[in-house]
């Protein structure tokens, strides 16, 4: 095509606002009168309200339980009585992950991740007690939470009210009339899209605002209230892009298909692929490409690596080497002549070496999880739920990265206990082998474990890719819709 013909061809003028507004108004009235919308929309509204209240109640209960348990665990730590500090470190404390205030919007991985970890001497433990094990296999069909309504049911509602947006006009013969009076196809698209968006806003914005209002009642001990408001806003942006993309897709397919029936089948097939097939199918692919090690493999690799450490074995070559280096540092020839307690010093050294091993092994395991998540979300270019789901979980603070953030904080706290206990023994324990006990004032020198949800900005650092994927998908779908609508023929 030459430049001349291009300029000669009538470039579709930008849709005059008046025309678009008229179309949008007419569409909106029609949609409101539609029995489909009354039923499906009503059902969705009821489900959203139920999910919102149920989720809030569960989140509050969980948060209370865990806060109480953290308090008890700390009291148990304080009430140990007089004992050797290392013995106290062995007793340790439990860390309970506080329920994220936004988890009532998207519980994410919460049911499938351990809720508590034992912070004891020598060992970085795995989280235990996955809530899903306290439920039946019914749980595996899905949770009744508002994210389920937004991710799965809302796109279906869009499909159901828009699949015949263009095919219906054509079948009734009204498309010919519209085009004959000079309405541009693009104007039709924009008008219809405006009407659907307004309708969705009426249905979805109130529960979102309600959720935001509920956030003002959150206990602020481990969150920044402005930050969680920001998180919820970002979360809703993701849903807006997702649902707008679905509406455009629905309109585009309706314009491209010869009959309402065909449009409906194509859209339903995409909905099933997006919501049910792709998430599972990709999970299997990700598990193949980046396989998770088994607990036995992981633990025996750790045990193997820890053999290089001396632990309590005083005949271990590493122990002897360390002892010699300490003796040399203090310029003495016998352990008894050291001005500090050598056993405590060696415990501390062994712990320090252990930390490096744990960092390496847990780091590798978590890298595998993140790699699996990355592969999973790549599918978001075609199936947007794969990008939306991680985005929503991340904003709710219920994704794997923030679970690991909590695990890291708990491990830091465990190490603080180890260091403080060892430091006390290094200072105070005599080298003559006689026993040494410390009392409650030492236990109280360890502050209670406090965890704060990471700031939204740091979550964005990992998550912008998913939002970008969603935007790219929606833009692609927008392009598709515009292209097919421009080719719209009345028959």
């Amino acid at each position, binding site marked *: 095509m030459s430049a001349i013909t291009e300029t000669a061809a009538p470039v579709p003028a930008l849709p005059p606002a008046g025309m678009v507004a008229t179309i949008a108004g007419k569409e909106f009235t029609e949609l409101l009168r539609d029995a489909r919308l009354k039923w499906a929309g009503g059902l969705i509204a009821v489900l959203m309200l139920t999910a919102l209240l149920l989720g809030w109640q569960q989140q509050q209960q969980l948060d209370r339980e865990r806060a109480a348990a953290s308090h008890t665990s700390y009291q148990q730590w304080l009430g140990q009585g007089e004992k050797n500090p290392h013995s106290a470190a062995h007793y340790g404390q439990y860390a309970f992950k506080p329920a994220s205030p936004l988890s009532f919007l998207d519980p994410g991985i919460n049911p499938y991740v351990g809720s*508590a970890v034992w912070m004891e001497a020598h060992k970085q433990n795995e989280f235990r007690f996955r*809530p899903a094990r306290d439920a039946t*296999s*019914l749980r595996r069909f899905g949770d*009744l939470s508002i994210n389920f309504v937004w991710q799965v049911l809302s796109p279906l509602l869009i499909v159901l009210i828009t699949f015949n947006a263009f095919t219906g006009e054509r079948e009734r013969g009204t498309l010919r009339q519209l085009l004959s009076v000079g309405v541009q196809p693009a104007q039709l698209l924009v008008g219809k899209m405006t009407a659907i968006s307004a309708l969705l806003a009426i249905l979805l914005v109130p529960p979102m605002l309600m959720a935001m209002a509920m956030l003002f009642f959150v206990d602020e001990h481990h969150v920044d209230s402005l930050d969680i408001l920001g998180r919820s806003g970002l979360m809703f942006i993701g849903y807006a892009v997702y649902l707008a993309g679905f509406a455009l897709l629905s309109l585009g397919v309706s314009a491209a298909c010869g009959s309402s029936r065909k449009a409906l089948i194509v859209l*339903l097939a995409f909905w099933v692929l997006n919501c049910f097939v792709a998430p*599972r199918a990709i999970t299997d692919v990700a598990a193949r490409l980046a396989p998770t090690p088994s607990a036995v493999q992981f633990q*025996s690799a750790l045990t193997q690596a820890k053999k290089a450490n001396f632990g309590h074995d005083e005949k271990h070559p590493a122990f002897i080497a360390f002892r010699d280096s300490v003796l040399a540092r203090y310029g003495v020839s016998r352990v008894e002549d050291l001005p500090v307690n050598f056993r405590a010093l060696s415990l501390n050294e062994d712990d320090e070496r252990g930390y490096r091993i744990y960092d390496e092994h847990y780091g590798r395991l978590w890298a595998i999880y993140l790699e699996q998540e990355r592969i999973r979300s790549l599918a978001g270019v075609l199936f947007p739920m794969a990008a939306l789901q991680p985005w929503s979980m991340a904003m709710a603070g219920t994704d794997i990265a923030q679970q690991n953030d909590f695990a890291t904080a708990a491990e830091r706290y465990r190490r603080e206990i180890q260091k403080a206990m060892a430091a006390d023994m290094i200072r105070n324990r005599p080298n003559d082998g006689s026993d040494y006990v410390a009392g409650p004032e030492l236990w109280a020198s360890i502050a209670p474990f406090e965890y704060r949800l990471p700031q939204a900005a740091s979550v964005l650092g990992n998550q912008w890719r998913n939002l970008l994927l969603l935007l790219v998908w929606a833009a692609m779908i927008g392009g598709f819709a515009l292209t097919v609508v421009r080719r719209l023929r009345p028959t």
Partner: protein
Amino acid sequence: MSMPAPTDRPVAVSLFRDAFALERRLFRAERLMPVIVAMLFCAIAYAIANGVAWQDRQNTLLASAQLEERARLDEQLGKLADMQEGRYTPPSAFQNPRSPLWVGLRHAATYAALPPSPLAVSAIGQSDLNPPYVLVSADTRESFALNDEIENPGNLLAGRFDLSFFIVFLLPLVIVSLSYNVLSSEREQGTLAMVASNPVRIAVLMWAKLGYRAGLVLLPLVAFTLLLLLSMGAPVLQADGPLRLLVWLLVVLAYVGFWFAVTAAVTSLGKGSAQNALILVSTWIVLVLVVPTLGSVAVELAYPVPSRAEMINTLREVKNDSAREADANAARYAIEHESADNGGAVSEKDYKTASQRVMMVKLASDRIAATMAVHERQIASQRDTTAWLRFLSPAVLLQDTLNEIAGTSDRRYADFARQVDDFHRSWQGYFNDRVLANRPLDAADYAQFPRFAYQPESAGVLIGRILPTLLGLLLPMLVLVVVASRGVARYPVDAR
């Protein structure tokens, strides 16, 4: 259409056959058959491949657990031999291979394994949440009973694409998409009036069309499943595998039958194609998503499991109290940190601390069991209620039954846990008796340690439990067939 035969019944039969043949020609003309067959093949192959890969992982896991246990025991046996030859002096009771306390608690701790059923590849079920083995030691029950296998929680949340997922979730949609318009499209194209002008009942036409589609779904489904299970090396022919496979086929057949009956009933309402599709998809959403989700909420609200966080602290209190009572707190520290000058046997001091530890475990065990029983009773009540609730949705009923057949159901894991508890008691008895009697272990004792072997339930019991499922699928199917037969008799022929 062929000429009508003289008697009524053969007329229906031959008409049915004709309609069936016509349908085949139509599908051939639209080149739909190869597409559907290829789609079924790909989905089933992918699902079974995932099941096989998962099972391989489970088997590797069990094998590596056994290997790890063997290596641990060999290390102890080596130390024992060295001790006898005078080459090894344990630096502490903990490192003494003759100490019944530490051997029973740590060094000989044994994996109680749940062997996979021959059809395990067909449904991953609850096997991703429950590890197939438990490391049993002489310690208290909470030390092992709730241990998890390492897994990315994101994978647990998403679930897997296995054969049972394909059948429970997707197959109904395949059926719906093939048959939502069996009569309505004829009416919309105006061909139904033409057909009805022939001496053929519309009911016969509908059943023939649905029958043809059922064959189109079932034949490849059964053939591909059998072929792929066998060719991908699933051990379906081992032990009671063939019997399980037979039951599997029966329930899947009944499920497919149920969904065709739903389609027939919706078709008989006489609505348009798009409306049929909407009603059918809504039915799917209600049965596959809404009923299970609401059921899960109802069951958990009716039988809430008390806070695990609180349980953890209670168990710690119980252990503290028991330890204080047995005055073993200081002793445990001494065992791990002070060396004993025993030269091989268990010293007086070690005996004292070891027996105190055993006393503590004995004191704590009953209290711990009582604390944990509160949670387990609630979970058991949830399970029992679910066993009734599942009849509300054929999808839940089938999912549950396929898990049963694959040996990955909640019930089987509960049964495994029960057997492990019995074994744990005998393990504790064996070592605790020796600790209290101050009897050091020798090589002969090592060969006598209790061993766990899972006692599977007989195939008869399993089938007895699955029979109600079959009824739960067939009964609604029959009701729907009756409804459809009555409705279709009044089917509107005119094009709208």
